């Protein structure tokens, strides 16, 4: 057999293996992404079907548009708090479950369970639970112990945090599972040595556990952050962005401007800003975490 010809054929086959993925990726991801960038510099909309180049006008308009600013503000608050709360709760929970408890497996199953539910349905369910009507379970409970009703979703100052609460309920177990796996991979020798040295619990946590959890902290916080910035379903079902614009988020505003109102160019400019936001946030987060890691070791 001619080896060069054979090798050439093998290389061709190897390249062919990439093709289906690459072609689909180009058509359904890269091409629309590039178009978004192009649209963002045009006045393209239902009223201007023949798009005209208008430079950065859309971008200037964005920063004067109150609904856009509110959407960004809500989303950033939501994503930051989500990341913080979810991980601040998941780490102690994982450490607790790492003890040889009798009900460990059962508890693990229960804490994780909400993560398999659809956020849309979770949103609907919690909007019943938080309702101010007679049947609202949470307010019934508050009244039973002599407190006043709380208008969880109707109060514009509170609604975003009420939604956040449901998502902490839903996703903390998910993060916990990942922390737990990481904990189980940590060698017992470290703890053995610490206990011989008579180290205090807090010292053990901050000097051993936390640094060794860094890989999963990176993963979980970046995922929580990106998930938070993309939040849509749960808000759609709980408040639809209201009351007023108090719970409107980026993806929601994007759909409103870009599809419902058919302002394709303007919506695209917002999308471009959004994608830069995500990239910057993820980049900064990983940099900070790496620095933290470098300082510790």
């Amino acid at each position, binding site marked *: 057999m001619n080896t060069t010809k054979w090798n050439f054929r093998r290389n061709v086959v190897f390249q062919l293996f990439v093709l289906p993925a690459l072609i689909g990726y180009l058509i359904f991801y890269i091409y629309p992404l590039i178009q978004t960038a192009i649209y963002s510099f045009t006045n393209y909309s239902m009223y201007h079907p023949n798009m005209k180049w208008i430079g950065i006008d859309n971008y200037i308009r964005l920063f004067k548009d109150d609904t856009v600013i509110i959407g960004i503000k809500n989303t950033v608050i939501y994503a930051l708090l989500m990341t913080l709360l979810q991980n601040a709760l998941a780490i102690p929970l994982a450490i607790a479950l790492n003890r040889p408890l009798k009900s460990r497996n059962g508890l693990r199953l229960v*804490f994780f369970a909400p993560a398999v539910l659809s956020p849309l349905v979770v949103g609907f369910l919690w909007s019943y639970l938080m309702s101010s009507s007679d049947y609202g379970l949470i307010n019934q409970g508050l009244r039973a112990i002599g407190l006043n009703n709380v208008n969880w979703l109707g109060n514009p100052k509170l609604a975003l945090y009420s939604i956040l609460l449901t998502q902490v309920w839903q996703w903390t177990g998910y993060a916990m599972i990942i922390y737990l796996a990481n904990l189980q991979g940590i060698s017992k020798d470290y703890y053995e040595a610490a206990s011989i040295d008579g180290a205090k619990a807090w010292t053990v946590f901050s000097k051993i556990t936390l640094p060794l959890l860094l890989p999963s902290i990176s993963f979980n916080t970046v995922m929580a952050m990106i998930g938070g910035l993309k939040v849509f379903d749960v808000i759609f079902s709980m408040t639809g962005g209201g009351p007023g614009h108090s719970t409107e988020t980026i993806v929601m505003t994007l759909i409103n401007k870009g599809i419902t109102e058919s302002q394709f160019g303007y919506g695209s400019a917002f999308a471009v800003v959004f994608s830069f936001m995500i990239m910057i946030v993820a980049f900064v987060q990983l940099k900070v975490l790496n620095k933290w890691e470098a300082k510790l070791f």
Partner: protein
Amino acid sequence: MKTLDSYKKTDFILEALLVILAIGMVIPIYYLLITTFKSSSEATLHPLWLPADWKFSGYADAWKAMNYPRVFLNNLFITVSSVLGVLLFASLAAYSFARRQTRLNNLTFYFILIGVTIPFQVATIPLFRLIRNLGLIDNPLSVIFIYIFTLISFNIFLIKNFMNTVPIELEESASIDGCGVAGTFFRITLPLLLPVIATVAILNTLTTWNDFFTPLLFLQSREKGVILLEVYRNIGKFAVDWTAFFPMMVLGIAPLLLFYVFMQRFIISGIVTGAVKG
């Protein structure tokens, strides 16, 4: 070792606290299930009690109103096709990236990784036009293609990382024996990838089954819709009897909840593997 790992008195308190917390976390789900068997007046009066007399008609009505068998099959078709598609295309590409580190291949790999960082929602507007121009609006293929090719980046990344841990010697001896690239891949490598394939299948099943955004945009007729669209469309139709909506929510989450109950160990280990390798 024993002192650290054995059950201590403080662990008993810890366990008691965790069990209380777990019960608290389950209450919403318990409430959802139990309310489906009650009339609205009973549900308002005694929200957490077991029903005095069990009412099953709610499920029959919800089943009919949602056209459940139809939307369930639509969901199943979309999820199975997307997961199989991602598995096939991603593992083929990952194989090439892992085993042929030519400059072109490496560049392509990094180019595909862009898909991990920028969410496809950014490209929704042109994507919507593209799907319309392809005549795929209201066709499950639209959703399937979008799932496959927007999830593929992360999956290629995951499978390639795993493949780096699979010993190459077996493949080499197969190719010396005259086995072609495709033959080696399907007969030797693919079986060794089973753990990561299980992970990928589980992660993608959870993501695609529960996705609401994509079907909302691209599947517009009720005939072609998925379960969550029916849940969404039916809310508000039962203004008088609010409990009528609860069986629909249960039918909305039941498939994945059952999947979880039966596959919990695989699901949890799948998610962990995805996080550790990813």
